[in-house]
């Protein structure tokens, strides 16, 4: 019952202690997590976007430079000059000085015949009339191809442009070594998994892919590359491996190539994950600390509460001893007094009845009979019971009418043995051995000799009663001990080896009308009166007992001043 009460209080306190810091704690972490991760995500994506942007510029300017190189050559030399192998060789060398990417240089006439060629392959004299690039350059005057293998079976792309001199079309074409071009794009490295590559409109890789996927293959992730747009698109998508990647894509301006930069999401958001782990760690540690502190505090509070309650209960019990006893005394006195009047009437009536009865008997009006005997027995019982009532009321009146205490100085050395002597005969008759341990130099105490005598006699008689009950007329051991403590107070102890008092009764032992004696044998006021007397003397009366072992009553009295 009581445990449940403390448990429910404990639960309430625990909840309050956990929730009060817990809710703001989780809120702060949640809000922090949200803003922090959002910002990290934005930063990571912006980072990739910036890289894409930068590389696009780089690639575009590379293309533009190569284009203007060719334009320069085309405008600076006449076709007649360009077809001279020495001249062309020198021009190629000049170009290659500017950029390694130039693999070769070729001049074509309007029919697609390779009229001059400078480079590592023997391509002179071949006709390109039907080549796709040739058709495109004739139509548009300028063309950059996708990567292809061509006659030479090596991946490369070409830049070609036409010029018309003297009504005759001629074409200059440079092959760009895709290997060198590749490096431009491949250089892009973002974090551990970041990479970049180019795709043509058919979705074919124009550069190699670090994560796998060779040049001119279809890349392993299906980028939505068909639709052309300006600016940069960013999105998160799963690739073929099922891992999520952050993508940033943009179309090049002067060529229909899509620049793709991507980084694995986990890598791009590694700071994000770190933040997440940090927050989870804080959450777990904080949660553990809050919970531990809450449990600790709750346990302490509940324990203290239990202790306070216990103390309160003890104080309450002592209060019963003092104020409630006085109140009870007053009430009981009034009650007893009122009962005494009808008792007096009853007693008179009973006497009268008895007298009349004996008159009848004397006159011979009532012959002896069984009924007469019963009647006389009943009459006797009424007398006995009235006597019993009057014993009780007398005891109550005694209890209620506690006199003022005389403040006499008492020497326990003399006083206690005198009282013990009064019970020695009774003790001997009941086979009880009395042991007195009275300290020699006891300080005089303050008290009322008559009342203290009443108290001690009461305790001694109780002890003897209890020992006789347990041992019969052999084996009782009564100890009377008197000693002074450090504060000048005196302790008188009466210890017996009688039946003892169980825990339940121990609580009520000083309550008025509480008795364990058989009906009619005790009023239950003795110890209550003793308690009141000692209390009035400024002392304390305590009891300790174990059922079946015995009881110890201790009186502590103040020293005489």
């Amino acid at each position, binding site marked *: 019952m009581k445990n449940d009460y403390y448990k429910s209080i404990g639960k309430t306190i625990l909840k309050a202690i956990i929730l009060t810091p817990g809710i703001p704690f989780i809120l702060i972490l949640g809000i922090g997590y949200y803003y922090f991760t959002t910002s990290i995500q934005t930063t990571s994506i912006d980072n990739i976007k910036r890289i894409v942007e930068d590389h696009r510029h780089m690639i575009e300017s590379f293309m533009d430079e190569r284009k203007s190189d060719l334009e320069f050559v085309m405008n600076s030399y006449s076709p007649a000059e360009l077809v001279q192998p020495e001249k062309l060789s020198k021009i190629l060398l000049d170009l290659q000085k500017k950029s390694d990417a130039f693999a070769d240089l070729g001049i074509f006439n309007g029919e697609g015949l390779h009229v001059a060629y400078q480079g590592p392959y023997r391509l002179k004299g071949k006709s390109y009339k039907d080549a796709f690039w040739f058709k495109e350059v004739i139509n548009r005057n300028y063309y950059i191809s996708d990567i292809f293998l061509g006659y030479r079976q090596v991946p490369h792309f070409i830049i070609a442009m036409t010029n018309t001199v003297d009504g005759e079309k001629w074409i200059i074409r440079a092959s760009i070594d895709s290997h060198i071009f590749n490096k431009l794009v491949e250089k892009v490295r973002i974090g551990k998994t970041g990479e970049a590559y180019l795709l043509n409109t058919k979705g074919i890789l124009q550069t190699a892919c670090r994560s796998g996927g060779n040049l001119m293959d279809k890349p392993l992730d299906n980028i939505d590359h068909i639709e052309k747009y300006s600016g940069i698109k960013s999105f998160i998508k799963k690739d073929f491996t099922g891992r999520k990647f952050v993508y940033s894509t943009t179309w090049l301006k002067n060529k229909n190539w899509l620049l793709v930069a991507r980084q694995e999401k986990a890598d791009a958001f590694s700071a994000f994950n770190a933040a997440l782990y940090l927050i989870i760690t804080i959450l777990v540690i904080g949660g553990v600390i809050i919970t531990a502190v809450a449990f600790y505090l709750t346990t302490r509070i509940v324990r203290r509460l239990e202790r306070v309650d216990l103390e309160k209960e003890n104080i309450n019990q002592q209060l019963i001893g003092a104020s409630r006893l006085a109140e009870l005394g007053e009430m009981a006195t009034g009650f*007893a*007094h009122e009962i*005494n*009047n009808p*008792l*007096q*009437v*009853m*007693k*008179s*009536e009973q*006497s*009268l009845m008895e*007298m009349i009865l004996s*008159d009848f008997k004397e006159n011979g009006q009532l012959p002896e009979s069984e009924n007469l005997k019963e009647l006389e027995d009943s009459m006797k019982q009424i007398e006995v019971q*009235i006597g019993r009532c*009057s014993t009780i*009321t*007398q*005891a109550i*009146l*005694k209890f209620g*009418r506690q*006199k003022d205490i005389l403040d006499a100085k008492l020497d326990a050395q003399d006083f206690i043995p005198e009282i013990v002597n009064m019970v020695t005969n009774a003790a001997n008759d009941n086979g009880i051995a009395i042991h007195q341990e009275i300290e020699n130099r006891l300080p005089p105490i303050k008290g009322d000799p008559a009342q203290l005598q009443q108290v001690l006699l009461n305790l001694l008689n109780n002890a003897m009663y209890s020992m006789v009950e347990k041992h019969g007329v052999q084996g009782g051991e009564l100890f009377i001990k008197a000693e002074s403590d450090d504060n000048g107070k005196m302790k008188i102890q009466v210890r017996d080896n009688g039946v003892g008092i169980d825990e339940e009764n121990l609580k009520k032992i000083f309550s008025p009308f509480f008795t364990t004696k058989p009906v009619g044998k005790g009023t239950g006021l003795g110890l209550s009166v003793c308690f009141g007397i000692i209390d009035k003397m400024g002392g304390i009366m305590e009891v300790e007992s174990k059922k079946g072992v015995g009881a110890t009553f201790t009186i502590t009295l103040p020293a005489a001043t």
Partner: protein
Amino acid sequence: MEILKIMLVDDEERFLLTTKKLLSKKGYEVFTASSGAEALEKLKKQNIHVVILDVKMPEMDGMETLKKIKKHFPLVEVIMLTGHATVESAVDGLRSGAIDYLMKPADIKELIEKSEEAFEKRKRLEEKIRMAQAKRIMKSPRQIIKGL
């Protein structure tokens, strides 16, 4: 022999009635009064020897009645009937002139015994008074003549 005249003073009517019957049967002359005032009134009319007086009564209580009785009828012996168990309340009565006390509920035998004792005391007292008066007469017989 002179019959003992007892007056019971108590506010409990039934007690008066029954005790009167009891005492009458024993051969005493019994008067009753249910208040202090009534008791004083009856004392004026009757030569009552012993009064059994309840301490606790409404209006004029036992102690007050006792004092008045002792003042106006010093020869009347009073036995206090107290509801209080302790000697102290009785002691107050004794100090104010009561000859003895009885504790409620009092036994009828005890009541009679104490009344008889009181009566004996009163008789001795009266005897002494008579003796003293007789002595005086002996000293100056003329006064008797004068008195006549």
